[in-house]
């Protein structure tokens, strides 16, 4: 529900705040240009720059506020809503402060860092609006722990059933379970990388992407089954392995979606700190060479 209310918090109150701020900024910008062209050095430029700097500090403060669980200074939901709208407004205010002038210098560096922070924030907003629905749909209302519990049971059942089958089937299934990969590194989590293997017959391990190879291996044994009980076991095993495949797909998808839900923060947060530092230098250097 948080994601649905984020933008519409209290009738999009902070949207109106931001629009008001933008109108003020627009007026400030438009009144420049008589004595010198619009830039950060006019009194209007200084005011726009001060608004931008205060906004950056306040926007950063969300990271502090959301950790203060006993704070009564507004709700985190309200803060986040304001964070989104005022952060978007900052993009325009800072551009007006700069008077659309860029160059290979510290000032533009601070501006570019701010753009990266805001752009990653937009990506995060999109993820927060879009992904939670997809994630819970993928889990069918359950939790990730439930998916793992299901996988754990399927592993146990298929392992014990496979031991009742021919030795090469037992080895194949046991090795496929042991060598199943889930998640892993950054790439594997974000792109559902699958480095699963299984031991096929007497040979060395072969790739078992999406568990298809081990399902095929067991299925090939089915027509050659000698006894009725053997065929029944193999059939049951194939059912278990296919259920396992389905659960693994769900878990991989869950890992991938949760990864995309979080990855933007690994840009948003570090670049914010670089921005705070660059902003300080921007202000100081402006007055060193006044």
């Amino acid at each position: 529900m948080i994601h649905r209310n984020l933008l519409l918090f209290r009738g999009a109150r902070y949207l109106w705040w931001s629009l008001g701020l933008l109108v003020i900024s627009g007026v400030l910008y438009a009144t420049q240009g008589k004595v010198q062209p619009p830039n950060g050095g006019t009194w209007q430029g200084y005011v726009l720059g001060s608004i931008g700097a205060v906004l950056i500090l306040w926007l950063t403060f969300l990271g502090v506020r959301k950790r203060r669980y006993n704070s009564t200074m507004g709700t985190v939901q309200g803060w986040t809503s304001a964070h989104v709208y005022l952060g978007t407004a900052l993009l325009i205010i800072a551009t007006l402060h700069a008077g659309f002038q860029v160059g290979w210098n510290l000032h533009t560096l601070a501006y570019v860092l701010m753009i990266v922070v805001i752009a990653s924030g937009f990506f995060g907003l999109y993820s927060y609006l879009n992904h939670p629905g997809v994630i819970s749909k993928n889990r069918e209302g359950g939790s990730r722990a439930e998916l793992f519990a299901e996988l754990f049971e399927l592993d146990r059942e298929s392992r014990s059933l496979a031991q009742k089958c021919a030795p090469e089937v037992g080895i194949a299934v046991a090795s496929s379970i042991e060598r199943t990969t889930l998640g892993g590194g950054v790439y594997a989590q974000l792109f559902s990388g699958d480095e699963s293997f299984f031991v096929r017959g007497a040979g060395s391990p072969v790739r078992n992407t999406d568990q298809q190879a081990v399902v095929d291996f067991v299925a090939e044994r089915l027509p050659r089954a000698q006894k009725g009980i053997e065929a029944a076991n193999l059939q049951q095993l194939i059912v278990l392995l296919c259920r396992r495949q389905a659960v693994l797909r769900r878990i991989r998808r869950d890992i991938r979606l949760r990864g995309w839900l979080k990855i933007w923060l690994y840009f948003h947060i570090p670049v914010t700190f670089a921005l705070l530092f660059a902003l300080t230098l921007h202000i100081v250097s402006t007055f060193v060479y006044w």
Partner: protein
Amino acid sequence: MEALLRELHEGPDGIPEYRDTEISGADLTIGSAADQRIQLLGRAVAPEHAVIRKSGSKLELSCRSGERVRVNGEPRSSSKLEIGDVIELAGHQLTIAEAPGGFDVAIELRPNENIDASEFESAFRTDLGQTWLSKRPAAWMLVAIVLIFGVVLPVSVIVMHHAQREVPAWVPGDDFWNSGPLSPAHQQAAGVRCDTCHQEPFVRVQDEACQSCHKTIHDHVSPEHLALTQLGPTQRCATCHREHNEPASFLVNSSDSMCIECHQDSTKKFAQLHVEPVTGFSAGHHPQFKARLLKPTVITAGSTFELEWKTWTRRSSNRTSSSRTPSTSIRIASCAAATASRSIVRTVIVSSRTASTSSRSRWRIAAPSVTS
């Protein structure tokens, strides 16, 4: 190293079952990750927990930093292993057994059967927080980059400039603080030396810096006249001539508004100095041009007379000097017959002399037209 791993389970009817696995490879790795030689599940098991290696004829166990196992009941981070030693880890039991022929080591594994699904989940890295991605080191790294280009290099270059040391042109220095392009002439004169104009840190560019090159530029208003007004102290050159602006041509501000800013309510601001108000450059907004600052001197010559117009300006190269020279003198011969109407005086410029110091004075080009 060739190892035999015997996994012992309790079968459905309480009869022990076992499963043998042959493991070959340099190290016998133990951990919860899928790529470990011996994969053990449980929250207390790290993805890569411990390694069993062969050193000489002995076996040696060593844990990853921060990890521990129990060897014969004692918590250890490393240990030599003998036959019969029992390694315990999160309820799993590994016993070193006599190796059959062809093997270097045999290990009996009694897995902890009470591992539940939630512990099973911890065998996998399913969160970005478990990868190399980290916000704090990334933040420090980015701050360091900004620090190098924003502080370290500029300050070093400033220090080297002060010490009169050569700095290669490709080294980024305090020009990284440049807030916008310089006008081409200033760029050529100053190059990358910001201190050509910005001589004192945290102090606005002073007129002395401008006049070190612009030696013959006069004041817009002389200090004597300025003292008669309520305009306050003399404006800096840079008050009107703004640098580092885009476009660079804006350095010489030709917009009317700059003039009008002071001249529009001149009656108030200029106090004793009588200058008519200017509200624009069009008819009705600008007073008639007059030679207000030229002082006429009447020189009679026979039946005619001459007017000599003089303006007094300071020696611009020396601000403190009070010595004065007539910088411009325009001699006008007027023929005004005593009998003729005195209301019209026709003037003819007969000579225009200009002193060398005022060769750029605006009065040279503004020839006065006198009517009385």
